[in-house]
């Protein structure tokens, strides 16, 4: 199960079956930050495997308990859709955005890559789903929601995207048009020109580090900051920098300064 925080609410990935362990996992996860999502909305990504109505009811009830309105479901099969509707959920169209993926051989298995070349994004998703992704495997093994830190060696090109429930480290560049989404910190050992979203589930203490910080946009938790508009060079200082929330705003500081501060504690 994965929870992805967006500005307007939650996306909950629940493709794995049985759904019963997910119910308690969800409770654990929400209990850790009990009031954070209160008043917000959630969309459930339910996949295509049949599910138990009681499990679904249980999930909706837990969300309600924490003040979250479950009002939509993305279903990849008719019977899942029927079950969702019966539970009072609105059906939302399938989403390509929700599943973490990067369009690259190094992290994507060959058969998924091949499927993409033959049938486009839909075929690749299908191939990926059939073979199972890391998150569902972990859930099936019954291990607690292990952080899926992502260590990626190489550059991300425009249009590629990397998401992780944990920390992301990229040894390479992140080009404009690429995006990184992590519930934890993001570290780019290279030039960050794209979009980075750290603390995506609501962790205000998350940070974005880069050797060269020249992002199109930075997001930490629920805050968003654009790079300064026109005028002169869009390039950063050329020095390693870190972005974090200070006094409610995303601020960029030279990495050296941060390091020195940490030392003096």
């Amino acid at each position, binding site marked *: 199960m994965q929870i992805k925080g967006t500005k*307007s609410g939650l996306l909950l990935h629940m493709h794995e079956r049985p759904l019963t362990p997910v119910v308690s996992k969800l409770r654990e996860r929400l209990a850790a930050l009990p009031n954070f999502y209160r008043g917000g909305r959630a969309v459930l990504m339910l996949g295509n495997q049949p599910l138990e109505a009681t499990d679904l009811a249980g999930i909706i009830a837990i969300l309600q308990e924490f003040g979250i309105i479950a009002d939509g479901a993305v279903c990849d099969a008719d019977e899942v859709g029927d079950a969702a509707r019966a539970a009072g959920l609105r059906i939302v*169209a399938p989403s*390509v*955005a929700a599943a973490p993926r990067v369009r690259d051989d190094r992290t994507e298995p060959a058969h998924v890559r091949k499927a993409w070349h033959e049938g486009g*994004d839909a075929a690749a998703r299908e191939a990926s789903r059939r073979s199972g992704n890391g998150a569902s495997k972990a859930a099936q093994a019954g291990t607690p929601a292990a952080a899926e830190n992502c260590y990626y060696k190489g550059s991300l090109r425009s*249009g590629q995207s990397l998401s992780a429930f944990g920390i992301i480290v990229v040894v390479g560049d992140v080009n404009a048009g*690429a995006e990184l989404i992590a519930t934890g910190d993001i570290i780019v050992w290279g030039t960050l020109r794209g979009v980075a979203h750290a603390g995506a589930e609501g962790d205000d203490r998350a940070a974005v580090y880069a050797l060269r910080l020249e992002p199109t*946009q930075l997001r930490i938790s629920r805050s968003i900051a*654009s790079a300064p508009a026109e005028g002169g060079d869009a390039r950063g200082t050329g020095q390693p920098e870190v972005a974090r929330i200070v006094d409610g705003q995303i601020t960029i500081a030279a990495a050296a300064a941060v390091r020195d501060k940490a030392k003096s504690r």
Partner: protein
Amino acid sequence: MKGNIFVVTSGKGGVGKTTTTANLGVALARLGKQVALVDADIGLRNLDLVLGLEKRIVYDVVDLAEGRCQPRQALIKDKRLPGLFLMPAAQTKDKESVSEAQMARVVHALGADFDAVLIDCPAGIEHGFRNAVAGADEAILVTMPEVSAIRDADRIIGMLGTRRTRVVVNRVRPEMVKTGDMLSVDDVAEILGREILGVVPDDEEVIDTTNRGQPVALDATRRLAAIYSTMARRLLGEDIPALELLDDGLWSRIRRIMVGQR
């Protein structure tokens, strides 16, 4: 429905669809209209770059089509002009991420709130093209006086059905028309058999404005701004005869050539 929905298309890539969409949008906004520009080039978005709005994208048309956000959240308000809004495309998805029906719904909803909606169409005639055209009432066909571009434009006309289609002849080089190395506007009009919305001369500074995200129509002192303004007024229904475009001796050759224009 409040306003008309135009798809800006061409068939051939690189003839200036995105630049035309951006500049017509700016021109319409400068005339006091509420304009929504929609980038339908999912996966290869560029309208945001040309407008200089790429840093402010949070939601995009795919998010909207899939119900993950409200229209107002996906629209980016341009700070330079009241009334100019951008609905960006997604970059990390591809064109199969939205259906024609979804696109049509999105643009119709915008049409209810805006005086004009311009849809920037991707190159080609595949899924992306069909999506872009799906919700449009009328078409603005951008082409260049160059054989490949004209041929592709002709093919596109055949795929636009009964929609009113007006042609923008872009990147015209009068000196090349004179030496016969480029088709004249008159030739283009006759071959394609559609009304001409406007003629835009080639201008090497357009590349710079595109790179910097400052559409040339923002600068009222530029000749191109006046040309886009006239096109915008025509889109809004004003009947402006062709000769009004030509206020500069440099373009007198085009004046002679554009005899057959409506």
